[in-house]
């Protein structure tokens, strides 16, 4: 079993030093270099191809997300393990979308880091809490759009056959606002005209006939 060659990209020297120190104690992992930004990282990879690149999301100028995408497109064999101070779902999601196989918080333990590197180097998605967070949001996605109360009122009046000025008068709102609501509804139901909107509204049982 060959050693896993690791490149660390982080603009923070303390992180670099700490991670370097930590990984040097892990057998089978060799830190082949540390770089402070995306340009240095690409330059380094061009000379010495690494197995795993640990990328900090928060890099100056070119972000970790963009760097990940770049690495994945230029160096097909190189795997990326994302690392960040943040644990926001959006970040995790973005990094995974860009091609990272794992996402680690910088506060991760030595054991976690070791496991993640091994997993990623093998081309396997490293499953941890951060990644599991992504799944939940997908199942929450439902097709029936959420309609606000005001929109529902407007929708009911549209179905009742009222024109925009009549609706505006009835709800004591401006014509412009009625138009916004109508546009919102069209966008939510992914329809292009009022007739389709009415059909969808009836289909989803949102209005009274």
């Amino acid at each position, binding site marked *: 079993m060959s050693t896993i060659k690791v490149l660390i990209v982080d603009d923070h020297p*303390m992180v670099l030093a700490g991670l370097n120190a930590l990984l040097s104690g892990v057998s089978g992992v060799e830190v082949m270099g540390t770089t402070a930004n995306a340009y240095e990282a690409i330059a380094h990879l061009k000379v010495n191809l690494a197995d795993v690149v640990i990328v900090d999301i928060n890099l100056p100028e070119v972000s970790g997300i963009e760097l990940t995408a770049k690495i994945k497109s230029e160096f097909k064999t190189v795997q990326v393990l994302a690392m960040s101070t943040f644990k926001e779902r959006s970040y995790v999601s973005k990094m995974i979308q860009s091609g990272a196989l794992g996402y680690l918080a910088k506060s991760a333990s030595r054991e976690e880091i070791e496991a993640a590197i091994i997993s990623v180097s093998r081309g396997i998605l490293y499953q941890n809490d951060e990644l599991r967070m992504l799944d939940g949001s997908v199942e929450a996605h439902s097709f029936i759009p959420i309609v606000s109360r005001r929109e529902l009122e407007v929708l009911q009046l549209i179905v009742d056959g009222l024109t925009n000025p009549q609706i505006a008068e009835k709800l004591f709102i401006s014509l412009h606002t009625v138009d916004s609501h109508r546009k919102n509804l069209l966008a939510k139901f992914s329809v292009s005209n009022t007739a389709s909107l009415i059909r969808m509204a009836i289909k989803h049982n949102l209005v009274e006939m």
Partner: protein
Amino acid sequence: MKIRKALFVSCFAALMLGGLATNTCYAQQKAIDSLQLFIKTTKSDSLRTLAYVELTYNYLIQDTIKSKQNLWLARQILVNHNWDYNWGRLLEIMSQYWHHLGKYDVALLTSDSSIRFYQKAENSVDKNVAKDAAFRKAVVTADKGGSYNMTNRTEEAITAFLEGLHLYEESDNPEADAEIAACCVNIATCYVSIHQFEKAMEYDLKAVPYFLKLGGEEDIAWAYISLASDFTRLEKFDSAVAYFNKAEPYVQKLNKVGVNLEFYGRKGQLYWSRGKWRETIPYYTIAYESAHQIHVLVSEAGYIRAVADCYYNLDDLINAEAFALRSLDIDEKNNFSKEKRMVYNLLSLIYDKKKDYEKAYQYSKNYVTQNRLINEEEQKQLVAELDRKYLKAEQEKEIVQLQKDKEIQQLSLHQRSLMNYVLIGSVIGLILLGTLIYRNFRNRQSLSSQQAELQAQKISELEKDKQLVAVDSILQGQEEERSRMAKDLHDGLGGMLSGVKLSMGAMKGNMILSEYNNTLFNTALEQLDQSIIEMRRVAHSMMPEALVRLGLQQAVQDYCEKLTQAKQFQVKLQSHGLEQRLHETVEIVIYRIVQELVNNAIKHADATIVLVQIMRHNDNLNITIEDNGKGFDHQSVSSFAGQGLKNVQDRVNYLKGQLDIQSIPGKGTSVHIELSLRNEHNKSINS
């Protein structure tokens, strides 16, 4: 106008001359000459007519025909004009002319016409003319009294005099004082003739201060004598004596026959009425001697008869007879019928006392005859009165003629009035033009005031903008500060802590520690973890990294999901058209709005379901935050929630958006925000 006024003055100077001229023929002739010269030289018809009128007045006594000629000359000019004052003056003098000719009724009617014209002239624009007309009106009114008096209509005379007096009293004409005094005397005379002596005394008394003021010694003497007579008639002898005493120095100083006649006659009467026959005789003696001197024969005869009467009462029948016969002689020569009757009566009494019954009977018969004659005379007078009334009717015809003249004049005036209409029309046109110009001016003024208002509005808008800019810059500064601090925390402290954590992790495997120390080491690691988490939380709340790095949609999504994770409430996100990032500042502001409103919904409204909706359609962006919380009454927004809403309002203002809050207590709150990304302000943010 000034010239006219000057001429007016010169004309009145002539009038004054005329007035004074009555004293001497020479002066009067001079006045007539100057008036005629004036007529030739003046260019003003108005003044010419007045001069003619003055001439009429001046000729009145010496030459009635010339007087009338001038009157007609004046009238001929006036027929073509509507000069009220001149007409008044003409008719006034005409009235005097008729009065002078003894046609008192015509005079009265003419006076009335004159008064009407003066009344019109009183409304004249020219103050001097108006004042003068008022004074002339008083003169004519008083003249009417004279005419009434001459026709024995005493009560009407008194009314006219009183009215004249009233008018004079209102006038500030310097001549008024003399006229007031004259009026009072006239009124008193009238009252005497109707035996209202109390009233007579009242008016005589009223005249005194005016006479004293005017200073005419003869007038003062007359006034005192009149008053003394009044008191005599009222049988207030002490007062009568007092006034006689007051009169006496003037009488003696003047030593005028007429005055003497009146003074001594009246004083005699005082004693006579008290039955003091002996004291009466010397006064009556001076009186009849004075009367003789000035040929007032009726008075002479009367006083002689009165002396006879005194002697008769003193039983001095010889003297009585002599004086009575002397009186009778004068009466018979001059046919003083009433006086004769009284002398006959007296003589019959004297002879009766003398027991000369034949003569007594004779005179008694004479008395009866005379009495009958007088009655017949009175009868005749009555007939004459009727005759006069007939004449009056005739004269009224003349008045009608006059009025016809006036109509002719008015006809010619009618033509003139056509001209006047044209003039009035053009004046109205001018006024209209003026009004239009004025209105135009006003409009322009109001326009400029509107502009000023607009400017003020603009200023206030600018100030509001300035305030907004201030709020904006605070907002922006705040966000920048937060962003910077969050970045510092993340990159600086975060990096360091992570580094420490990693270093410690590296140490862990390479050290051999006692169990106790190992526990301590792990605790330290955990505490470090907690520190990092805490730091991350603080940094995140300051500025979500996702917002800056990944955009609004991601940041809001993270926010909603993080809240939902707690499972106590559900925060649903609905977004559309946010794939393209907005300007960073706009995104931050929107994020803060969402944060604030969602926070309000969860913390203050106890909502369990919150809908966050951010929809973008081209350049329009609308945000809806809806909850199922308890809602609130607009009036009773709690201060905390109120502050939150104020922050939201500030931020919406910053984005130049429209905020609409719908809240029904118990049914939740719905906040709708509309904003344009094309907005100048947001563009400038974008640039």
